[in-house]
């Protein structure tokens, strides 16, 4: 009969109306500035650069290989290589970037740079409150550089895997060095 379905609908909304007052569980809204959701491991915004140790610039993992610059579909990374070399975590001499800029106005947060980087140097960040009182949208090396601990905090599983792989490589490299050093002595 006409009207029964309508009454059922009215019951439903009426139940919601009363229910939302005595059962706060029903309210799914997160009242943002005061309340926040737990960070999600898979969330990503703009990229950032990882440094090891305590020096945010000197400890950067980036070797200025420019793979990310070339792969970035939006062409928003700009790298200028430094001429001086310094040893990386395996002891090899590597270049490092003099300039590393990301134009965040163009970056579409696709994560390709993070996928292609062979040195686990560039990763996706989770900052989303990026409004400021300036108009600078290009982030420089010092804005981008964040510690490995921070990476471990925002993407725990991924960072643990990266750290384990790097420790493994480091161990192998040391063993190789030791093996290379042994026949040299006699």
């Amino acid at each position: 009969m006409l009207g029964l379905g309508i009454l059922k609908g009215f019951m439903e909304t009426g139940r919601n109306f009363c229910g939302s007052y005595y059962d706060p569980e029903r309210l799914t809204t997160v009242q943002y500035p005061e309340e926040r959701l737990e960070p999600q491991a898979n969330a990503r915004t703009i990229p950032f650069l990882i440094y090891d140790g305590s020096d945010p610039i000197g400890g950067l993992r980036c070797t200025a290989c420019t793979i990310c610059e070339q792969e970035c579909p939006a062409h928003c990374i700009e790298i200028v290589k430094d001429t001086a070399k310094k040893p990386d975590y395996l002891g090899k001499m590597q270049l490092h970037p003099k300039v590393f800029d990301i134009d965040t106005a163009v970056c579409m947060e696709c994560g390709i740079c993070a996928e292609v980087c062979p040195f686990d140097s560039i990763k996706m960040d989770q900052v989303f409150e990026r409004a400021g009182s300036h108009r600078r949208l290009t982030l420089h090396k010092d804005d981008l550089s964040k510690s490995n601990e921070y990476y471990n905090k925002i993407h725990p599983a991924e960072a643990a895997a990266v750290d384990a792989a790097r420790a493994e490589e480091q161990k192998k490299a040391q063993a190789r060095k030791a093996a290379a050093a042994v026949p040299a002595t006699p």
Partner: protein
Amino acid sequence: MKTLDQIFVLTQHWLTGLAPAALQPLVSMLLIIAALMAVFGTCFALTTILERKTLGRMQNRYGPNRVGPFGLLQPAADGIKMLTKEDIVPEAADKALHFLAPLALTAPVWLAFAVLPFGRNMSAIELDAGILFFFAIGSASELAVFMAGWSSQNKYSLLGAMRAIAQMISYEVPLVLASVPVLMAAGSLSLPEIVRAQSGYALGWIPRWNVLTPWGAAGFGVFLVAAAAESNRCPFDLPEGESELIAGFLTEYSGFKYALFFLGEYLGLFAVTGLGVTLFLGGWHAPASWLEWLPSWGWFGAKFSALIFLFIWMRATLPRLRLDQLLNFAWKFLVPLALIDLVAAAAWLKSGGWQFAWALETRWLLCATLLAPAYVCLGRHWRGGTPKPRRYHYAQ
């Protein structure tokens, strides 16, 4: 209690008395106008925020709660925003009509409040043909809506306006037809007279409100649906259906003109709700004799708020209709039902003199046998069968 009941009337008399004798009629008029505007202006502001909060709660959200305590200052923030927004008039628009349309919508609606009795002795003017005046004024909004749609020179606006015309004219018929039985019962076209006719209690405790008779209940149902359609409320908000027409006849309006349209629509809703309270819910009468010590305007306000809540509830519950469903519903369901209701009301009133035992029950049964089958049959057939698959002659 008498004083509290009449406090507004007394205040008005007292303030009028302060003015020089020559100016008294004018002052008295201005006072009433100011009071009406203040009360219903506040009502508008409160309804916008409470509606949003209620809708939120019905969808398990909080609704606005940021501006002021519990978000109650939200209307002020909205008002300031509307006032400071740029008022854009399209290049091709008919400037004069475009400017006049919001005024033409809002101004007549205020007039409708003049005839509503808000409490004992509390109607601005006691017109003999108050209800006729009300409907005449109410239909002015169609003109304004069409002015808005036509002058905007925009296809969406025009489509919205055409829909509005079709809808408002169609629903005016059941709206008026549903009120006719009330006029028959009261024997008068004057709204205070209609309220007076609903005073007293049947069997000593049932209030003699029209809604508590079989024809009144049916009429009230038809009236509510038609009232929602008349004031463009969900689920009948096709003229501004965002999903298909952007904002219908409001598309080209911005800033304060847009706010005026909003004001006009809400005031129209208030007016027709006030009429519903007057016609069917016993106006300012208390629901029981031991509650009569509460002021009459309080009762009017309570019934009024309850009906407004019902409209908000309706908006939260029902999805928008399609245009053909809308018109079919008016012409194939509401109008026939209102006509049958007229017959039922006539039967009820004619049999009013029956004196034998079970007379009341027999009258109820009589009206129910007229109304219930009609409701069921009409409810089954108003859609006119399932529509055939549509054939496109030229598009293939």
